[in-house]
């Protein structure tokens, strides 16, 4: 890495820029799995910007250590390319190939330029190889980070999407839960429910667990916590949508739901809620 014999590399890039670019693009597109017009033109654009940048960096830099401050521009440009590829759903190999594909055209020019001095040639190739490996690894690292960010954002979105609180009637709220309840989600559910209780002045909240795949002791504890918090705010809770298997599991696990009103379906729970709030439903004969 301390080797600073990059004069050859720089001069080759500067003098054969157009040819290198063609060789690079040809190499890139042959390795690319998905191929369409827009990505190819984008590729050409990115590559044609990257090459002069690399040449100028090599010119002013005394080292090929890519973590040096001279290489800041290159790192920045690679990071941008890597991030955009992560978002577009490219594979890590395709992303890294952007850098690695430049190797073989460069090597062939190096070979012709230093044909007379094999010792210098092998040194140059070793240095160049290390340089491009570093750059390639860097793109992978950025790619990985971009992917992680995407995953985190999606998790957050899922969390917000999956906890709606709906008003069924005056003073009656429903909370249809879908998916497993972990502690982070319980927190969001609780906050949403309590805020809605304040906003609507609800007296009863129906928690429907039809969409909850399994109820273990932890999920049950989270449910009981939510119910306790709602009770502190002055709202009673009814659990509905308990499937037969879940009823069996709850009893086998020894979870105590004695103090909570439980109903098999949301409809049953709604009837109870209406009775409690003093509303009644009547059916008229002439409207069928």
């Amino acid at each position, binding site marked *: 890495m301390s080797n600073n014999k990059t004069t050859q590399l720089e001069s080759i890039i500067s003098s054969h820029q157009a040819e290198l670019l063609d060789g690079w693009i040809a190499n890139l597109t042959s390795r690319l799995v998905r191929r369409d017009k827009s990505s190819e033109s984008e590729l050409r654009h990115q590559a044609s910007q990257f090459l002069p940048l690399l040449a100028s960096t090599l010119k002013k830099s005394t080292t090929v250590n890519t973590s040096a401050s001279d290489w800041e521009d290159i790192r920045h440009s690679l990071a941008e390319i890597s991030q955009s590829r992560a978002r577009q759903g490219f594979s890590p190999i395709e992303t890294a190939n952007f850098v690695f594909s430049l190797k073989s055209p460069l090597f062939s020019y190096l070979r012709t330029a230093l044909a007379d001095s094999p010792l210098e040639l092998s040194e140059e190739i070793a240095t160049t190889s290390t340089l491009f490996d570093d750059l390639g690894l860097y793109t992978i690292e950025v790619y990985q980070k971009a992917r992680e960010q995407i995953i985190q954002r999606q998790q957050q979105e899922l969390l917000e999407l999956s906890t709606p609180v709906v008003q069924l009637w005056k003073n009656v709220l429903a909370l249809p839960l879908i998916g497993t309840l972990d502690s982070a989600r319980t927190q969001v559910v*609780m906050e949403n429910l309590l805020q809605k209780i304040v906003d609507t002045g609800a007296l009863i909240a129906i928690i429907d667990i039809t969409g909850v795949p399994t109820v273990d002791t932890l999920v049950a504890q989270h449910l009981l916590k939510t119910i306790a918090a709602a*009770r502190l*705010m002055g709202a009673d809770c009814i659990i509905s949508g308990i499937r037969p298997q879940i009823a069996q599991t709850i009893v086998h696990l020894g979870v105590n739901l004695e103090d909570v009103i439980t109903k098999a379906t949301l409809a049953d729970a709604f009837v109870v809620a209406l009775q409690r709030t003093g509303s009644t439903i009547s059916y008229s004969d002439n409207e069928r």
Partner: protein
Amino acid sequence: MERIPILRMGRLLLVTIQVDMHDRLAMTLQDDLTNRIVTDRATGVLIDISALDIVDSFIGRMISNTAAMAKILDARTVLVGMQPAVAITLVELGLTLEGVSTALNVELGIKLLEKGNR
């Protein structure tokens, strides 16, 4: 000396806690409240904590105890106006205030007490 006012509404007593509680204040409140329940022949007590952003285990226990005292004197206690954040904190602390009735606001609390007395 600092005191928490106790307002009379018919046969109900309304206590609004707006300041930070400490031992002395809690003792005075319990003293005053039990006295007033007896002298005013109150049947219900409303404790309004809507102004409190923080309720710790001390205030939680104080409320439970006060409710228990009122119950011995045959008055029902309703805790009203708890903030959502406070409710979550209390549940996380494991303080669910089992013996105390709750309502969203003073109006609903009065309704609850009247329904119970009928």
